[in-house]
């Protein structure tokens, strides 16, 4: 049981990175970006290319790919979302579905359907208090925790993070407080891109690198973001941990194949009983 809970914790903390990206993008741009799955896939393949084709070690490959993917996200916004910005969240959401199809199939075109893995040495699992932890889980736990800590500092202690939260809170007021919304949108895409890249690599290490790898995480990612309250960074983190742990613990009583149903149940329950999520704010329709 402790082992299952630990596995759930690791899954949850991996999901927290894309969930935070979803919630940041939703907060600032007011749309649900369904391309996040395919974005993680593309970033995972970028690291795969650097790691296996150019023989870069994983750390520099991940850092370089994360930065490059951050810039790619700014470019994707310029080409795909910016021209549609005035048409509302629904149009942007549909555009993100289209972008997701394109990105996933670009990865498929380049590397085929076969599952691949990073060039990493095999390592013995580590045991602590009857919990078996493999190296990939430990890396995922440390990297994702560090990334979330950096995001916490950025969002609460740094002017750029405060400005992102301000634009998410009230875009018109942000403008008359001197905040350049266009610059904040670029920063948001860059940071979301880096989070998605790191998330993609961790998923690739935990499972395998293949075209549908990101899409298979879409439901838990959105369940985490909705559970926490779309637009709430802290909510995304807590929501992801809860989704990860509850999904894994559920396998103690239901067949593992039905695990994916847990996040769907959570989404349904949250939308019925607390639509604003755990940390989101209730909106009053006037």
């Amino acid at each position: 049981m402790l082992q299952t809970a630990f596995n759930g914790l690791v899954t949850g903390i991996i999901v927290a990175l894309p969930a935070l990206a979803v919630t940041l993008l939703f907060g600032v741009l007011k749309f649900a970006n369904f391309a996040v799955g395919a974005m993680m896939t593309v970033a995972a393949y970028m690291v795969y290319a650097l790691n296996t084709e150019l023989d870069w070690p994983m750390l520099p490959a991940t850092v370089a790919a994360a930065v490059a993917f951050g810039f790619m996200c700014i470019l994707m916004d310029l080409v795909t979302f910016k021209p549609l910005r005035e048409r509302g969240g629904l149009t942007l959401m549909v555009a993100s579905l289209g972008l997701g199809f394109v990105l996933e199939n670009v990865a498929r075109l380049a590397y085929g359907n076969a599952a691949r893995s990073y060039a990493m040495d095999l390592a013995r699992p580590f045991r602590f208090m009857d919990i078996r932890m493999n190296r990939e889980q430990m890396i995922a736990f440390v990297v994702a925790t560090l990334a979330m800590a950096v995001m916490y500092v950025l969002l609460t202690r740094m002017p750029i993070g405060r400005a992102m939260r301000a634009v998410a809170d009230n875009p018109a007021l942000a403008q008359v407080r001197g905040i350049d919304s266009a610059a904040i949108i670029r920063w948001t895409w860059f940071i979301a891109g880096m989070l998605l890249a790191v998330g993609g690599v961790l998923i690739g290490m935990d499972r395998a690198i293949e075209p549908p790898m990101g899409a298979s995480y879409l439901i838990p990612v959105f369940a985490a973001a909705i559970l926490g309250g779309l637009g709430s960074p802290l909510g995304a983190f807590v929501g992801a941990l809860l989704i990860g742990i509850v999904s894994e613990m559920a396998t103690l009583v239901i067949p593992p194949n039905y695990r994916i149903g847990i996040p769907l149940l959570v989404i349904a329950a949250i939308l019925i009983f607390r639509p604003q999520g755990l940390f989101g704010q209730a909106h009053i329709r006037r």
Partner: protein
Amino acid sequence: MSEIFRVEGLHAGYGAGDILKGVDLRVEEGTVVTIIGPNGSGKSTLVKTLAGLLRARQGDILLKGTSIRELSPPQRVHAGISYVPQEYNVFRNLTVLENLKIAREFMSGGRAKGPVVSDELVALFPELPSRFKALAGNLSGGQRQMLAFACALAVKPGLLIMDEPSAGLSPKYMTDIFDCIRKVNGTGVSVLMVEQNAIEALRISDECIVMATGRVRMCSPAASVLEMPDLQTLYLGDAATGQEPWASKSAA
């Protein structure tokens, strides 16, 4: 007294039609100018256009003789215009201190030096320090208005534009807010405000502008407007009396 702000033939609106139909006004340096007029006269549209939130379709807006018509809202802020909206004027999910930090950091364009909250600001808004850690959304209406006002003054502006600063406030906060406006004006900040509580606002104003149907109908010293026996018709218009508010007045 030199002119700090001028609006010439301003047209603006939503959709196909213009709400502002050629607004002209000027603000002298160091004065308080209050805009009054009946509902739907275009007062809020005017201040939104001056702040840059609504695009001017025609005409010009000059700050210290330089056109700011093509500037974005943040650029206008950096040029010296500070705007306090009527509602949704604080970041509700951020703390009081974070609201003030944002104002200090971004309204100055990164040039602000010294503490986040100056002694002058604390003197004007003594309630604020005890609520630094509170979420702005949890403040009362009056406290929120004070916070919005404090944010607008986090970097000393050349011109402070306020949209109905006393709207929805209790009598105590209403008195406080007009008192603050008078004190801020005393430090050399010019003020242009839209206000429904005309009598209170005119008591601290130098000039009064009356708007109706998207145009300036009258511009007079505030003291002389206060003495008008039919003052109510100026800001309630025909809703109160069935009379056009500007019918017997001539534009100054």
